[in-house]
């Protein structure tokens, strides 16, 4: 897969794993408010960032995502009170570890977007898309499909 991917005509494919209560609603608000943002993200909705198995991130990378974004409620605003605080620890470790084994740091990005931050959601997607575009197509950990 990575062999056939060239930078020319290539568009970053980004998987965004977002929580139902904040970031997903934030994305909705961005849509309702007709705020423009790059169409490079595929959103996966989960109940809470605390529900995200770090394996989801790794799996997305293996299946050919050029970048993975994880976003939830701001600390203190979690629908389930502490889900995102637990997740924050997991992701701090995950981000460090993925970069330690030699993946580019900007392939995995973590952030918070609340339900009222449609504008911020658009900014995040713009920012992430630019970062991933700068890195080029993913070629590490990507499973080649015969």
């Amino acid at each position, binding site marked *: 897969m990575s062999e056939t991917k060239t930078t020319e005509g290539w568009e970053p494919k980004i998987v965004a794993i977002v929580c139902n209560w904040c970031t997903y609603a934030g994305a909705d608000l961005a849509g309702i408010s007709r705020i423009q943002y790059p169409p490079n993200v595929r959103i996966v909705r989960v109940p809470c960032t605390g529900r995200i198995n770090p394996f989801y991130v790794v799996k997305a990378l293996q299946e050919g995502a050029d970048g993975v974004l994880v976003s939830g409620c701001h*600390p203190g605003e979690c629908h389930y009170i502490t889900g995102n605080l637990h997740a*924050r620890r997991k992701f701090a470790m*995950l981000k460090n*570890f993925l970069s330690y084994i*030699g993946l580019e740091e900007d392939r995995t990005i973590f952030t918070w977007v609340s339900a009222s931050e449609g504008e911020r959601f658009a900014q995040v997607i713009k920012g992430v898309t630019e970062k991933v575009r700068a890195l080029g197509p993913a070629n590490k950990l990507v*499973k080649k499909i015969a």
Partner: protein
Amino acid sequence: MENIEKKLREEAKLLLAEKRVDVIIGYEKGTLPFTATPCFITDPENAEKLVWNACCVQNLAKFVHDVISQHKESQKRVKPEDRKKKVVGVVGRGCATRSIVLHLQEKQYDRGDVVIIGVPCTGYIDGKKLAVQIGGEEVLEGSVEGDQVKVKTASGEKSITLKDVLADNCLTCRFNNPIISDIMIGENAPPMDPDHEYDEVGAFENLSTEERWAYFTKEMGKCIRCYACRQVCPSCYCKVCFVEQSQPRWVGIGADETDTQVFQLMRLFHMVGRCVDCGSCSAVCPMGVDLRKFLKKLDKDGFDLFGNRAGSSMDDPPPLSTYKENDKQDFIFDP
């Protein structure tokens, strides 16, 4: 050492004779020179078989978990009033007791299910290092005398400094004495060299991204996925491991190199706050994969970020089971 061994046998015999434990998990002499095998002793007379020396490699906490959980499973079909309790005695050095602390924190069994015979530890011999020292020759006879290892091979006798063949994790071990124990044999051992614990990780961090990736892929490229590292790990006790799950199938079972990388990546990541650096995985790996390089990073980050060292104290919960409101979040993207 002989003294410790003698006392260990006495205590083990007493525990079994007084029926305070049903089984003692310890080490017995292996069939080859420089080996000791985990053993299960139920007859007080057999306590004589126990050994305690620099050839005791495996972390016995693995077997404590196995025996207790199998026993609990076997009691499920027994009427509650007929259920039997089984108490496991174990020879516990530093890293084994850390694993037991972890099991207790993770509510795998109760403190009363296990009797820990604490032993001071001065590290074990890494078979791979020893093989290098003697040029890969077959060991015919061998013994450890003080800080010298005497080896006899076909081409003659050789004396090696013990320190040169101790396992890496032992050289920098921070907790070489039991964290918890019911009976302590002998005096606490002198500390190893924990100040240089993270030297290797630090050096690796300073390499470039590409160099690190090249190392990771090179090491994981050796892996044949025999899963010996998982089998021996006291922290790997899931009834169904993700590598064998089929709904969903997390990781492919073919020879694809990324599947191996992903398997390793996730197994390593399951050790966040749970690796006690006993070195068992590296010791059993038939391919010599440098697992410790990556596990030690998780240990370092766990300490740097959350001040936690796996199993180092009953009062320090596993870092991913808890949180602080002011946990570091400088990695959070802010456009």
